[in-house]
């Protein structure tokens, strides 16, 4: 009945299997130590955050007043011509939504290609393990690919966007490249984990028949790993779309750019329309991705 987000579980790793014939060691004090350390960290974090330089928090009644005013602005209570009664605004937002989807598809596609090209290098067993060339060459390829994935993954999309607009002209392509750069790291890491946990039987059989390394990759690894990779890719498409609004904010494309302009010009009902379109788009992509994932199964 439930639709477990297996991607989230993949990130978190599999649940540890109980070791047969061995009682689980019970270490209750470790749990308590972890809880106490965790609580202390949370308190310290709040103290640090609240001591940071910033404007003071407005008093509660003012917050309520501001929230109500903001909600009213978004709904266009005092606006004689709210954007959602205007066909022109809808067609503008529709065009931007298409741009945003194009940006996310392009980013996911580029990231998929990048991950496909580097995933074998990042896999342990295909470079320095059972099926790899081993030696200095194997290690060099392995560490380089792993390093590439860690670096690209560690830098958030928004920071990539800040760097990309220095070199590419602002627009959909710059946004797609920024999104793809982060996503290569995420997909590469997930893909390397998949490649390392493949069923080794077929690979060994192929090698026993005299298959070279390329044949092993093409006929042994790829058919086994590709469905799982495509599933991850489709999961990440939703994440990419979600992020494309903030990347577009910086690279000047799609719904994000419209949000930036509408916020700056205080066109509140346009802001509401952009946000509504954005949420609907995320839901639609969520649905499309789950339908496509069914095809991959």
């Amino acid at each position, binding site marked *: 009945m*439930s639709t*477990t*987000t*297996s991607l*989230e*579980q*993949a*990130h*978190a*790793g*599999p*649940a*540890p299997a109980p070791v047969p014939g061995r009682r*689980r*060691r019970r270490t209750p004090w*470790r*749990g308590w130590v*972890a809880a106490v350390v965790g609580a202390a960290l*949370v308190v310290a*974090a*709040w103290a*640090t*955050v609240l001591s*940071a*330089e*910033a404007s003071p*928090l*407005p008093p509660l009644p003012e*917050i309520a007043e501001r929230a109500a005013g*903001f909600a009213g602005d978004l709904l266009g209570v005092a606006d004689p011509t709210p954007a959602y009664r205007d066909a022109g605004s809808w067609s503008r937002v529709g065009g931007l939504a*298409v741009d945003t989807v*194009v*940006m996310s*598809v*392009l980013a*996911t*596609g580029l990231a998929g290609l990048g991950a496909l090209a580097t995933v074998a290098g990042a896999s342990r067993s295909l470079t320095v393990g059972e099926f790899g060339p081993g030696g200095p060459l194997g290690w060099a390829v392995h560490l380089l690919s792993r390093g590439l994935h*860690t670096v690209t*993954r*560690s830098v*958030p999309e*928004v*920071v990539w966007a*800040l760097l990309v607009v*220095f*070199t*590419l*002209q602002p*627009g959909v*392509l710059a946004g797609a490249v920024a999104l793809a750069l982060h996503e290569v790291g995420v997909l590469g*890491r997930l893909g390397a*984990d*998949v490649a*390392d*946990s493949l069923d080794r039987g077929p690979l060994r059989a192929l090698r026993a028949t005299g298959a070279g390394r390329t044949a092993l990759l093409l006929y042994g690894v790829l058919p086994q790993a590709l469905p799982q990779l495509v599933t*991850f890719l489709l999961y990440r498409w939703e994440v990419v779309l979600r992020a494309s609004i903030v990347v577009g904010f910086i690279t000047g494309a799609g719904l994000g750019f419209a949000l930036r302009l509408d916020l700056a010009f205080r066109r509140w009902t346009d802001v509401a329309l952009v946000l509504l379109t954005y*949420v609907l788009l995320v*839901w639609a992509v*969520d649905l499309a991705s789950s339908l*496509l994932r069914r095809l991959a199964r």
Partner: protein
Amino acid sequence: MTSAVLVPVRPRPGSRSLLTALLVGAVVVSLLAVEVEGASGGGAAARELLTSLVQPDLSPGFLATVAEAAVLTVAYAVAGMSVAVVVGVPGALLVSGVLARRRTSRAVTVVATRGVLATLRAVHELVWALLLLTVLGLHPLSGVLAIGIPYGATMARVLGDRLLDVPRAPLDALTAAGASPEQLLLYGRLPLAGADLAGYLFYRLECAVRAAAVLSFIGLGGIGLRIEVALADLRFDQVGTLLLALLLLVVAVDATARAARARLVV
């Protein structure tokens, strides 16, 4: 982090080739839809950026600034995660409907919570930050809540699914012994579902660190703000140091996660 859950694959050629066609088609159509403008001296800028990035500014004065920014970023991430847990745990109980006694009340709470959580989750952290900024002003709370709300909604979904995905047999045994839904949750579902929760929390903390790093989007401090300042000053060597710091933070959280999982679970 070892592996994804692998399902044995039985190919169905028809649906596979349809999927391939759809995916390739989508990417090609998007490529055609993009107007590629001529790069305007981007190559030179990229080269300058790259050469400076690999020669980071390691002067003690700047390193102190970086350390301060890194601490603030981690603090935002941890505070945000604490909010996420406060949102996520009750959300998980509601969205899984494990505490409901009647069929109708369960259906109503599950559907309603699902809709609310899906909306909270659909909005990106930084869009939340923009919205909260309008209401709370440039207060750290805007940043903390911006991370906590969407992360809490995601956590509610994942945790809720886990509560439902536990093996049936132990639950049936408890029910047969006359356990109430609360007792079922406390002695059956939580111990079974919570086995590897530490791993998930750390994975989300890693994401939260990245999210916290870019709270400069609305003007809050941390690594992102320093990166923006350094980029504005064209100090690419400082950008290099800051990116390195971010990399170290993410790797450190990842390593802690591995260590914690090894210690806590076995």
